[in-house]
């Protein structure tokens, strides 16, 4: 029997209707699956495929405790407690719990915040520790959430604050090591691209999953010894109190390696509370960022240059009249009365400016500071000793200072006569200390560094060894200058030092310039020196200053040097010379 649909029958109409519906389905599906394919795939991906950042941990910063690295800057996970006021319940319990657990981290106006029902996000407490967060979570408060974040922690408080710097709220290192080594400390965030379920749990299904692990930042070990740093800060604080100075800095470094053991600056701040600092100048490490006229401490470099060039010896003599004429200017000694024929050693002992101008003249034709003399001085001061240029120490905010070249119109004989005793130039403490180290360590200039090594993730300590950058003077010259500075210190201050050790140095009192003119009522006191046995084991530079304060190197800076120096002898367990 052959079935045929009758024209106009209900069956035929139904068949036609089914066919039309099928056709609509086919067309619609073709539109959705073929024409709109890419759009819906991207829609699905945006819902299902998540790109999660795996945050890299910022590298830790260690200091030394003797030879052992100890943590100086660490990371801590803290939480921000927030509320969704639209869904919170039992607000009195929320307020009680948060006040009781978070304490000072809780906002004062909790009730007002929870009353803002139109808001979906109100911060109730910040920087809550993990333990505190767990206690709050245990109360199962409805509408309360937690946001995790990492912050820097400074277990040693303000120790070496200007050397460390801080990390701002955007996670960028500022000042000090944090600023200079930001890229190394930052690490590299990882990436996790994966299909997730509704709870954002990553699933292994899918063929486009990517897992790129984060690379944590380097764990840097500083050459700063926390014990030396602490004592330097303590001695400096005591010195400032004694002298009435308001600002001071102490630098301790190893002259045989260029490694810096301590950098103390006062006043200081707590890096954990950098946002509470009102005076931004506190962030600056004045040892590297505040150029000044160093004064008589530079005489050690002038003498080194003269001996190295063979124009003087420690026993060379000249006729001191307390005054010396250079072009149209008369330069006088700060200390008068040592007139007559005296040695360069004597001039150094008494810090006589005329003696240094004489050395500068002898670098020329013997009576004037010729262009040749100035070229020589510039070559030694700038090119060899590194004054007036960046040292390259791994700290943010270093200033270069300035040493005027003889090529410059201002680089005349008068300026170079002033430069011979430390005026007419702007240099930083770290430049002076590095230069001084090179003249008492045998004549080798080391780039100053605060890096002692890197602590690998597996705990292996990779120590950095330093090499001299250049030879600046001969061993013979170095030995002579080292002895001259020992004699210069010993001439007046030998009794303050521990017996049996080689301690030498030079003081300096610098005039300051206000509105382009030297002022008499404001001077800066400095002292740079070394200590050790047969070889120098440390170089210490001290500077004290203050607004409208007349501070002197010998009276105000030297006692701080002595304090730290005597402590260093005990700390380094140096045995006196037989």
């Amino acid at each position, binding site marked *: 029997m052959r079935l045929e649909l009758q024209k106009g029958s209900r069956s035929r109409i139904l068949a036609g209707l089914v066919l039309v519906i099928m056709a609509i389905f086919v067309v619609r599906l073709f539109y959705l699956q073929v024409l709109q394919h890419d759009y819906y795939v991207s829609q699905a991906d945006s819902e299902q495929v998540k790109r999660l950042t795996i945050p890299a941990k910022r590298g830790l910063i260690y200091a030394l405790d003797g030879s052992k690295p*100890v*943590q100086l800057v*660490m*990371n*801590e*996970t803290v939480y921000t407690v927030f509320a969704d006021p639209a869904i919170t319940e039992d607000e009195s319990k929320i307020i009680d719990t948060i006040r009781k657990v978070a304490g000072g981290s809780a906002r004062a106006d909790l009730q007002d915040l929870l009353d803002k029902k139109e808001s979906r996000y109100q911060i109730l407490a910040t920087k809550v*520790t*993990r*333990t505190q967060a767990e206690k709050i979570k245990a109360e199962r408060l409805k509408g309360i959430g937690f946001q995790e974040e990492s912050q820097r*922690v400074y*277990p*040693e*408080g303000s*120790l070496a604050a200007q050397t460390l710097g801080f990390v701002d709220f955007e996670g960028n290192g500022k000042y000090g090591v944090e600023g200079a080594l930001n890229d190394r400390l930052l690490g590299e965030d990882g990436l996790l691209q994966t299909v997730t*379920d509704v709870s954002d*749990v*990553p*699933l*292994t*299904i899918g063929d486009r999953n990517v897992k790129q692990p984060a690379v944590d930042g380097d764990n840097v070990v500083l050459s700063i010894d*926390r*014990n030396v740093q*602490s004592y330097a800060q303590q001695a400096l604080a005591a010195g400032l109190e004694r002298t009435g100075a308001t600002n001071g800095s102490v630098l301790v470094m190893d002259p045989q390696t260029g490694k810096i053991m301590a950098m103390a600056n006062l006043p200081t701040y707590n890096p954990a509370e950098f946002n509470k600092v009102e005076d931004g100048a506190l962030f600056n490490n004045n040892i590297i960022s505040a150029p000044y006229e160093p004064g008589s401490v530079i005489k050690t470099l002038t003498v080194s240059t003269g001996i190295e060039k063979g124009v003087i010896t420690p026993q060379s003599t000249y006729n001191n009249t307390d005054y010396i004429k250079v072009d149209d200017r008369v330069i006088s000694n700060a200390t008068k009365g040592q007139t007559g024929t005296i040695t360069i050693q004597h001039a150094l002992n008494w810090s006589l400016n005329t003696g240094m101008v004489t050395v500068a003249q002898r670098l020329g034709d013997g009576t004037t500071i010729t262009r040749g003399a100035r070229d020589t001085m510039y070559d030694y001061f700038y090119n060899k000793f590194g004054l007036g240029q960046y040292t390259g120490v791994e700290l943010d905010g270093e200033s270069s200072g300035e040493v005027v070249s003889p090529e410059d119109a201002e680089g005349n004989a008068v300026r170079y006569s002033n430069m011979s005793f430390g005026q007419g130039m702007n240099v930083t403490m770290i430049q002076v200390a590095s230069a001084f180290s090179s003249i008492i360590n045998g004549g080798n200039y080391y780039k100053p560094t605060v890096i002692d090594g890197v602590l690998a993730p597996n705990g292996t300590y990779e120590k950095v060894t330093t090499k001299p950058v250049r030879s600046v003077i001969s061993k013979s010259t170095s030995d002579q200058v080292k002895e001259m500075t020992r004699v210069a210190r010993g001439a007046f201050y030998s009794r303050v030092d*521990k017996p*049996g050790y080689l301690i030498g140095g030079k003081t300096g009192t610098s005039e300051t310039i206000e509105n382009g003119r030297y002022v008499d009522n404001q001077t800066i006191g400095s002292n740079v020196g070394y200590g050790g046995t047969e070889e120098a084991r440390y170089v210490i530079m001290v500077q004290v200053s203050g607004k409208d304060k007349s501070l002197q190197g010998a009276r105000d800076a030297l006692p701080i040097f002595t304090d730290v120096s*005597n402590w260093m002898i*005990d700390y380094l*367990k140096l*045995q*006196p010379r*037989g």
Partner: protein
Amino acid sequence: MSYQPMTQFSSRRQQSWSRNQNTVAFISSVKLGPVAHTVLVALMITVLGLIYLTQATRATSYDYESQKIDSQIAELNTKKSDLEVENARLTALETVKNSSVAREMTTASSTQYVRQ
């Protein structure tokens, strides 16, 4: 389902069969039509689909376990970091200096060396 072998033997010469040609054939008595074939194929696809789903579900369950372990590791690492911070705070110079033990100590005298 059973099979009945049909042994119809004929000599090679009679049949003119070639060398190495099978001389015995087993022919099933059960005949599967196109519908049965379709059903069987559909069943096989269904079974394969089920196997795939089972495996995918099992893999997903491992994902949850893995996620749970990852969370535990992260939590333990956080606790470890917190303990390290606490340890560093407790052994910090200021903490040690201000400790009751340190307050009881006398100031260290200078080291003296004996000359031989």
